[in-house]
């Protein structure tokens, strides 16, 4: 698995570029409701963080703020990767139109957008990288399938192929394991571990606490404001979780 990722990414210097995110007193008010309050801290460059918390805790909102899609009502975000377009954001799958006429290969190839741009066609060498990425997520037999014909798990794999090619310094993943079969979760976790190894900064919203304990060194427990933030085992204590549930 690691070998694949190195082949596809082909630009290991990405890890060296500073790609931490600093947040200072983030506050978000949506429709008169305080969704996020006083988020202050730092996602270190190269860290692998799980964001956990009850429903309505503001997890997706925080990702939107980090990605720069949502301007916070107060506070500051410093995210150098954003200015250089080296930030990738995989939104929840409900954001996407499954009937859109597009093949798995085309979806994956979008990951090369930054290098190929709006007008050039896909060079042959890059086509090989697309094929490699699709194979790395286990969809090599589905390269020409329409995304509308994929299962939820296959669809997620296709998006991960795009992430592989994007090779972004910072990756934001909103519930990447939701409604996905166990084998796919295993594959995706392997890819995420690979990115972590290479020094990419990965921040994922995750619901399964066992997955967090097993695979994520850092965790941010969110309930409108951060209940705890740091090493995963120190964050996911019974007391903290109870407090989060009570706050939300």
């Amino acid at each position, binding site marked *: 698995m690691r070998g694949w990722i190195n082949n596809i990414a082909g630009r290991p210097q990405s890890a060296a570029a500073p790609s931490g995110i600093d947040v200072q007193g983030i506050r978000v008010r949506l429709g008169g409701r305080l969704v996020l309050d006083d988020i202050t801290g730092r996602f270190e460059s190269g860290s692998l963080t799980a964001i956990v918390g009850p429903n309505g805790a503001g997890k997706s909102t925080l990702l939107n703020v980090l*990605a*720069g*899609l949502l301007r916070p009502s107060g506070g500051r975000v410093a995210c150098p990767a*954003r200015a250089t*377009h080296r*930030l*990738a*954001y995989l*939104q929840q799958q409900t*954001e*996407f*139109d*499954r*009937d*859109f*006429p*597009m093949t798995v290969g085309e979806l994956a190839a*979008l990951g090369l*957008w*930054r290098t190929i741009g*709006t*007008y050039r066609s896909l060079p042959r060498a890059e086509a090989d990288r697309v094929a490699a990425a699709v194979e790395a997520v286990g969809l090599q037999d589905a390269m020409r399938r*329409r995304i*509308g*014909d*994929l*299962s*939820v*798990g*296959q669809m997620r794999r296709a998006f991960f192929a795009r992430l592989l090619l994007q090779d972004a310094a910072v990756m934001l993943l909103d519930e990447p394991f939701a*409604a*996905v*079969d166990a084998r796919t979760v295993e594959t995706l976790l392997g890819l995420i571990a690979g990115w972590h190894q290479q020094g990419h900064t990965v921040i994922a919203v995750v619901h399964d606490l066992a997955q967090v304990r097993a695979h994520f060194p850092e965790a941010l427990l969110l309930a409108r404001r951060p209940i705890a933030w740091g090493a995963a085992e120190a964050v996911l204590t019974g007391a903290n979780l109870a407090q989060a549930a009570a706050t939300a």
Partner: protein
Amino acid sequence: MTLSLYDLLVAPFEGFAFMRVALAACLALALSSAPLGVLLLLRRMALDGNVLSFAVMPGAALGFVYAGHSLAAMSIGGFASGAGVATLTGMARRGRQDAGLVVFYLVALALGVTLVAYFGSNSDVLRVLFGTVLAIDATALLQIATVSSITLLAIAVFYRAMMVEAFDPVFLRLSGGHGWRVLFMLLLLLNLTVSFQAFGTLLAIGPVLLPAAIARCWTNRPGPMMALAVLTGLVASYAGLLLSYHRNLPSGPAIVMVAGLLYGASLLLTAGLAALKPTRRRGEET
């Protein structure tokens, strides 16, 4: 009395200049509106498109009040009020509030009709509501042709970005692509403004939406979808004009009705074909 094929299909255009101009205008409109309609459907913005077509009305009416049946005044007014509504409703950005949009189009329609009725006649009202395909003059034709050319060129050059933006605008934005949504809305508004001349407020969205909807029944590949949409748009224009000539029907509605018939036939035929041939659907893995 029997008509020869020549009398039926060619003679109306040979004999009357206004029929030739109308045909040229409709064909030009179909060429650019149909692929734009495919993009509109893929973006799931059919409702926004409809609202935008009504938003052209009050501005065009003001243009009419100001300068009578002046093409320039009505076009500029229509374009301006469309752009205003698109900006106000946030259509050019992201948010969608269905109820708010519907309120907008009802008010726009009422305001436009009131203005035209107050300062003009009943026939003026009919004209802005249903258009006057057969009254298109050389200036209007030139305007339609210009908009059509600009649209086709823009879609050809920016095709990939516009498709990606339709599927995943956040991805494009984070990759450094800005302004594509605005470009799309601008092209749509231009097409609706000239379509308004021919089809009127109520039917202006017709040549945009119907061919695209028909094509979507038959294929799921974007290139062929656009080609088929253009083809059906051309056929519907031609057949609709003939129908309106031979049966003495209003031409805009005739064209839209022919397209509507094609859509109905496409729905029935594709549903029948799908029933005959069971296809694999998503979800065999999980």
